[in-house]
């Protein structure tokens, strides 16, 4: 299974967890038709936390984080993001979405727009930022993800790793307070995984609140302050990374780790 080695030194000076609650999920349940996909999820995420969600496929990891910006609707329980409860109220949903960045497995860049237009679209149309300012912000983040020279190309002309870094930059241009990553490296070739993980690590070093669904256990060990293990729609175990990997408690976790770490 995938385990990219994290070789770089990580600067932990800004990686501080505050007492302020960023996301509060209480007794949340979700069904796809009759299939009970998320069962009694309780999760509190504080500002500055870096959480990795792991688990076998079909365990509801992606569905959980997709509930946090309401790409999926939950049927019972409560999700409060930055003090705003997610209900069917469209105003609240748009408010939460503009505060929460999301990075997808398949990048989902807009293929008919240039990289620059991809980055400035939401700031201009949602945040009403003047175009010039949006361009400057976009260029700043493109430099941050180290591909400023691609600004005027179209997504189809970029490699997968570059596209994913553009997707991260696109989210950052909205100045989000929380970032969600839905298997951001699963569609990438091994040599490109590293460049995307590097970008994510830099983000963590700056103190971004992050929730990552990923199979990259090296990333989890290096960056996460908490690992959550899910199976059959439930949170089975959560712990800080060292304990999680070296001293797993439940049988399910032990089995999963033995498979994924390939021992």
């Amino acid at each position, binding site marked *: 299974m995938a385990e990219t080695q994290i070789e770089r030194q990580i600067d932990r000076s800004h990686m501080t967890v505050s007492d302020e609650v960023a996301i509060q999920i209480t007794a949340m349940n979700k069904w796809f038709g009759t299939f009970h996909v998320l069962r009694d999820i309780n999760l509190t995420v504080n500002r500055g936390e870096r959480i990795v969600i792991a688990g076998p496929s079909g365990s509801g990891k992606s569905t959980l984080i997709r509930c946090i910006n309401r*790409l999926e609707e939950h049927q019972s329980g409560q999700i409060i993001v930055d003090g705003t409860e997610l209900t069917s109220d469209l105003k609240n949903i748009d408010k939460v979405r*503009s505060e929460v960045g999301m990075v*997808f497995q398949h990048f*989902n860049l807009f293929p*008919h727009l240039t990289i620059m237009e991809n980055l400035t*679209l939401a700031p201009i*149309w*949602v945040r009403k930022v003047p175009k010039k300012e949006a361009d400057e912000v976009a260029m700043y983040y493109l430099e941050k993800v180290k591909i400023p020279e691609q600004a005027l190309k179209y997504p189809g002309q970029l490699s997968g790793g570059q596209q994913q870094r553009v997707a991260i930059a*696109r989210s950052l241009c909205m100045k989000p307070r929380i970032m969600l990553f839905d298997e951001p490296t699963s569609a990438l070739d091994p040599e490109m995984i590293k460049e995307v993980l590097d970008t994510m690590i830099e983000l963590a070093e700056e103190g971004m609140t992050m929730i990552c669904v990923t199979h990259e256990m090296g990333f989890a060990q290096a960056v996460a302050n908490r690992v959550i293990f899910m199976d059959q729609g439930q949170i089975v175990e959560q712990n800080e990374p060292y304990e999680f990997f070296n001293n797993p408690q439940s049988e399910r976790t032990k089995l999963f780790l033995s498979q994924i770490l390939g021992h």
Partner: protein
Amino acid sequence: MSEHHSAAYVRSAMLPEQAPPVSEIGVIRWLRENLFSGPLNTFLTLAGSFILYFLVKEYYPWLRHSVWHAGSVGECRDIVTATWGEGATGACWAIIRDRWNMFMFGFYPREHYWRPTLALGLLIFAAAPVLFAESRSIRMVVLGIVAAFLLVAFPGLGVGAAANLMLAAALAAMLVVAWSRPWGLLWLTGIYPGLAVWMLWGGSVWGPVLAMSGFVLGWAAWLATRRFGTILSVGAAVLVPVAWWLFGVEQVLPLFDAVLPYSIDAVRSEKFGGFVLALTIGVAGIVLSLPIGVVLALARRSDMLLVKALAVGFIEFIRGVPLISLLFVASLLLNYFLPPGTNFDIILRVIIMVTLFAAAYIAEVVRGGLAALPRGQFEAADSLGLDYWKAQRLIVLPQALKISIPGIVSTFIGMFKDTTLVVFVGLLDPLKGITDSVRASFEWKGAYWEPYIFVGCIFFIFNFSMSRYSMYLERRLKRDHR
């Protein structure tokens, strides 16, 4: 394995480049690859050659014996016989030479031929900011051809030298604007609908002006009520112009006519015919059906049950009945439902029906484009906080419409050809209506092929242009795999 065998090998001399064998270059290769690549291809080539030979052998003499100067079909035949001997047949293009104006203008008054001609020319100018914004060279070539056509045609249509000079000056000015800025002619695009209606039907200038001002009123209403929320402002933007058109215009029109009278000769709809009629209906149908079709496609994919049900019902109903039946409804039944004494223009009624008909097809084509978009595009738009309309406008529709271009243009081409069906409600379409009325005259009785070929060629020019434009657009919008 032998002791001498070794995997190691070093080339001592590099080989120079050599000419390819004869069978791999030039005409021979092209022939082999394209015409004789296998038994089936060889057979098809031979069969195709034979069919081509047969067609040329049968019809070439007929075309070669063409007669352009004659007063009647009988005269044509006499000339052919005199020139090519007994039993020879020849095309009698004299009918086109004599009656071309019928095919083009129907019974439109001869002294006003310049009006529909200018309307058609200006149509291309008005469309330039939308259709040819991207490439200056294409824009200038197209507009240059149109301007040259107008300047050549106008003296022939009996326009005086002074007026022609004015036209030349106006065209030159517009060409300069189109040269300097891609969107420079957008003002013309804005006023064109009113301008075209006025030039085609004539009458008081205030009718079209006041009708067009409805859009300005709607925009003003939207601006004024914008801060009270989307529903209210959209409602105001729709209701105010509708109320203006239904009740306001007829109150105000006499006032304007009395204070500042300005009008040109009115031409009644019954006088329209030929390609003036086909183009009027076709262009109006194309321009109106695209937005309606897009809205229907979005409605059909809506989560709101009522909206969706209405869209599905409308689309399936329209697609389920023949266009002719809708045209009959327009021409006959509508009169029973409307209050007595209302004079609801027949061409307007036909345009409405043709538009609705095309819109239903466009809706399905666009729905196909929408369905082809990956779900991730919608999710990315959502996750960035774009609301429904912004996501549709900025992300979804540009991509979906691009995918739908071939289907949309096919629908337009089909609709343009279907405008000939208006013959069944008594309008003089170029294909049957005009042809029949030309042939009804004593001189041209018996000329069958020539009018049809002529009308077919003109239709072909328009439709082929649309087809080429759609291919150009597809190429221009291609963004992936560069």
